[in-house]
């Protein structure tokens, strides 16, 4: 056994954990090596010094310490809030109900938009619907469309046309975000024709004829009849 091995084995020897095979080597080296023997003796002496003078351990106040520990590890009481007075299942049920109601509302709104092609909810205070508007428009269109026919009287209802034009602007404003291209096109054609009507010089038969041709060209009389607001649902505007 070398000196390093001896030093390494000292604590194992003290612990009684040195294998028996090595114990004789350990003892032999201790006898043959004065330096290691001194080292061993000094360690034993230091150990004896410590073991012989252990500090006396006083008895502390166990209960005081326990109270501090218990207070530190005790679960903290939950703060009572307004919500904490309701049972958890009730809150969950209310949440689900609100979610369901909102979901249905949005679904209906989306269905309405898909059917009407108009984005945004309608103005319930507005006094007419598109169907009403088209029904008002049909006789005017028929009157101007037939104005070129022999013996037909010159149309005189300019104020009525102005009123229809104003209503059209309101209708167009509401239909601005519409996804329905046919509706937007129809309203655009109506606007063009109504503007021509407003500015029509009834003393000039050529102008009356051109307007009549325009109405027929755009097929407005037919479109206003064919257009079925009933099928597209009522447009609340």
């Amino acid at each position, binding site marked *: 056994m070398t000196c390093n091995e001896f030093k390494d084995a000292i604590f194992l020897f003290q612990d009684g954990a040195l294998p028996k095979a090595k114990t004789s080597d350990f003892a032999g080296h201790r006898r043959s090596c004065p330096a290691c023997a001194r080292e061993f003796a*000094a*360690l034993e002496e230091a150990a004896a*010094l410590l073991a012989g*003078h*252990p*500090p006396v351990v006083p008895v502390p106040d*166990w209960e*005081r310490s326990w109270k*501090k520990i*218990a207070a530190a590890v005790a679960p903290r009481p939950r703060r009572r809030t307004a919500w904490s007075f309701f049972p958890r299942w009730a809150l969950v049920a209310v949440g689900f109900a609100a979610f369901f109601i909102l979901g249905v509302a949005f679904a209906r709104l989306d269905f309405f938009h898909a059917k009407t092609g108009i984005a945004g909810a309608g103005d319930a205070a507005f006094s007419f619907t598109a169907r009403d508007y088209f029904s008002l428009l049909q006789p005017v269109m028929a009157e101007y469309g037939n104005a070129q026919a022999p013996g037909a009287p010159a149309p005189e209802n300019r104020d009525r046309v102005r009123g229809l034009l104003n209503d059209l602007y309101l209708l167009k404003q509401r239909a601005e975000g519409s996804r329905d291209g046919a509706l937007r096109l129809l309203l655009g054609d109506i606007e063009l024709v109504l503007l021509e009507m407003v500015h029509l010089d009834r003393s000039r038969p050529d102008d009356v004829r051109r307007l009549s041709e325009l109405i027929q060209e755009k097929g407005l009389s037919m479109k206003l009849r064919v257009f079925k607001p009933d099928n597209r649902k009522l447009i609340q505007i």
Partner: protein
Amino acid sequence: MNINEANWVALARAGDPGAMHELYERHRGRIFSLAYRYVRSVPDAEDILQDTFIKAFRSLKNCQLDDDAFFSSWIYRIAVNCAMDHFRKRRREDGDEEWQRDFLAADEGRAAASPESEYRRHELRAQVEQVLGKLSARKRMIVQLRHYQQLKIHEIAEFLGCSQGSVKKQLFVALAQLRGEMDARSGG
């Protein structure tokens, strides 16, 4: 861990205060003894005792204690770390000299109340403690675990999370320092 203690640990893990108190009563003596012999001050040792149990109970829910990891070993390891942390903190706050004076004062206080025949013994003990007070926190803990708690080298290595070789080396150095200082004092 015996069956009985395993039950207490399971209950304490579930937050049962009675079980916590039972575990406290079972282990408080050994932990306080470790702490006191390490810091040589009752208030400091009480702080270590409290910190150890608070940390243990708070982390008991999250730690996995299987059959091999005994609760007593686990909490003892926590106590060792708490004691070393406390020692380092006190040393930083007070400085080495004041810390050593505290050790001496603690022993002298007891010596004054002792019979004359005990005086020399207390004086020697105070000197040993003073020398131990000069050691680093780790060396001091190794000496403490080895000579006051009678732990074996591999147990100390396990507690401190280092190799047995490292423990042996530091123990050699610490005991050599102790011996040298004591020789110098007796020579002077």
